């Protein structure tokens, strides 16, 4: 089973209760769906506001992933 590493930040990490987790999936959509099932409604609502990166590059739901990949969910940013 492919277990990409999911990285979470800001309110997404807080809603999930963890900043990272290994989540099964062969593309971004599968990983996110599995994460929504694991982390619940508050997390699922925040996911809709997030940008998705894979290994630091912009990605979409169809981007394939494997166990060596890092999927990051980035809520709206507030640096500065």
């Amino acid at each position, binding site marked *: 089973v492919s277990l990409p590493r999911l*990285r979470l*930040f*800001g*309110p997404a*990490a*807080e809603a999930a209760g963890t900043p990272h987790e290994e989540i099964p999936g062969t593309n971004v959509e599968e990983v996110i769906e599995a994460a929504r099932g694991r982390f619940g409604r508050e997390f699922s609502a925040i996911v809709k*506001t997030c*940008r998705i*990166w894979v290994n*630091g590059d*912009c990605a979409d739901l169809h981007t394939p992933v494997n166990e060596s990949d890092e999927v*990051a969910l*980035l*809520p*709206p*940013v*507030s*640096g*500065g």
Partner: protein
Amino acid sequence: MAWAIEPGCGAVVTFCGTVRDHSDGREGVTELEYQAYMEQVEPRLSAVAKAARDHWPELARLALLHRVGRLKVGEISVVVAASTPHRGEAFDAARFCIDTLKHSVPIWKRETWADGSDWALCAHDMIDVPGGDEDVDHPNGYDASIAMGR
């Protein structure tokens, strides 16, 4: 400051972002805590610097720094420094860098105020750096880094 001064330049503009004691609907802010996607901050700051250099080729020194961790009111959270031969380009480039940084670098701030603590409400949907390419080398006088709070 000395680092940013160059013989061929007549202008250095520095911008410092500081921790403010209030935000929208939140009075008595005492502290901010910045969290970052650490591995991706420098690449994104570099992309901002690259985009600025592409637009203002006369830029000599250019530095972008952002702190993470907990900062008290009045502390500096972010710095942009830019030197150019004439002042107009230094102001414009520094303004571009701080504005673009705030929308494109993966950093989040949590506010602690009199009545509670929560993530900032003034968050921006992320954008890609316009014309940015983080894989390009920066030959002259470029710097971008993240510094730990405290």
